[in-house]
């Protein structure tokens, strides 16, 4: 189907562009690292508290990092007006969004995976026991952040004060992701781990709702 082949082509472009410079990935990784360290200075976690607060702080750090990482998403298409050539070239503008949100999800996941060992070390939280479930939560949460973030970065790219605007638009919208991901992560990493399937289902629903909304309204986000 044309949508999927276009998405694949564009995804290739997104990945190639990023891996050539790696600026986005490196800055995001460093940012999450800095935030995690700063949190530990501000709160001074003992071992027991870490288990309760750590995952929440990790998700906070991911959210903050994402709100910065998503800024260039559509901004970088403005310099040479490549957004117009993309819109001209593809039949379904949703392909543009799909490619970007998949790329953003991958970038977020990559930075999270790099951060996980450090997170486990700083906060003394063993993550291996329930790693596969943790990865599932990370994926669903990151996907939700990317869907909403990609859509909103298309909006903020067309407004003033976009560096401040994007986090302002994004963070309130993502509170469900933060609450649920953090809570599910906490119970996963608890001494007696519990898998909250209701939470995982909720995250999937969140992702689906906004993916559908983006599918319906995406073309208007790009309109001139």
């Amino acid at each position, binding site marked *: 189907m044309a949508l999927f082949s276009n998405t694949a*082509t564009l995804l290739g*472009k997104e990945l*190639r*562009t990023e891996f050539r410079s790696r600026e986005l990935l490196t800055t995001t990784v460093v940012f999450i690292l800095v935030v995690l360290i700063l949190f530990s200075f501000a709160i001074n976690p003992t071992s027991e508290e870490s288990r309760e607060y750590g995952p929440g702080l990790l998700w906070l750090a991911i959210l903050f990092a994402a709100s910065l990482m998503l800024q260039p998403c559509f901004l970088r298409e403005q310099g*040479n*007006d490549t957004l*117009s*050539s*993309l819109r001209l*070239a593809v039949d379904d503008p949703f392909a543009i969004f799909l490619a970007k949100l998949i790329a953003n999800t991958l970038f977020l996941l990559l930075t999270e995976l790099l951060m996980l060992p450090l997170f486990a070390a700083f906060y003394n939280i063993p993550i291996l026991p329930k790693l596969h479930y943790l990865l599932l939560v990370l994926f669903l949460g990151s996907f939700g952040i990317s869907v909403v973030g990609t859509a909103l970065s298309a909006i903020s790219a067309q407004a003033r004060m976009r560096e401040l605007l994007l986090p302002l638009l994004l963070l309130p919208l993502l509170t469900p992701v933060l609450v649920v991901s953090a809570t599910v992560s906490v119970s996963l990493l608890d001494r007696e781990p519990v898998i909250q399937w209701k939470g995982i289902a909720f995250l999937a629903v969140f992702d689906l709702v906004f993916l559908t909304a983006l599918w319906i309204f995406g073309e208007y986000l790009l309109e001139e």
Partner: protein
Amino acid sequence: MTATTATTLSPTGLRFENIDKRYGGLLALRRVSLEIAPGECVALAGRNGSGKTTLLRVAARIVRPTAGKLSFPGAANEAATHHRPGYVGHSTMVYDELSAQENLILFAKLQNVPQPEARAEELLREVGLYERRGSLVRTFSRGMRQRIAIARALVHRPSVLLFDEPATGLDPLGIAWLAQSLGDVNRRGCTVLMSLHGESEISALATRAVRLDAGAVVGDTQTGASLRSILTFAGA
């Protein structure tokens, strides 16, 4: 729905019917009605801010008109949504961080051009960028940027070509090359609509000229005005 990607050009015209474009309270285009026959090479003249760029972007379907209808008579399917003109705007509309070749392959693939790598190579040779095909566009000079922009616009062999001030950034050699290329493209049956300032080798290709002022059509060689008068009042 897939758009036409004809390898042989089916002569296609361009029809604007009462096109309005409003930005806030400002009407950038006012009831523009224009019929361009297949194969014509039309020069669009007018002062800066007269609406030339907006009209071209409406034709390219990048800008959505506030009112009015755009269609492509002569195409397999006349409806605007099925058609994809070639468009060269003020920016290159290619990726600086990719090479010339990568850019062309990207746009070829997106538009379902058969054998995208071969097509990219063919175009690069045509525009004289084959030696620099592996270099990132970021390293290109202004003239080279214009060439890659043109190549990108032609990748899918459009039957309508839209050109916003094509000679920008080109030295006399470049302009001569462009005039020849545009002439070739037009002779192959591609309809051309280009915005210009004043007379040049490029304007000499035009079979017709239309003048815009404050978003409205105020002169047309089709209705008797001379080509020169249309073009020379267009000085900035």
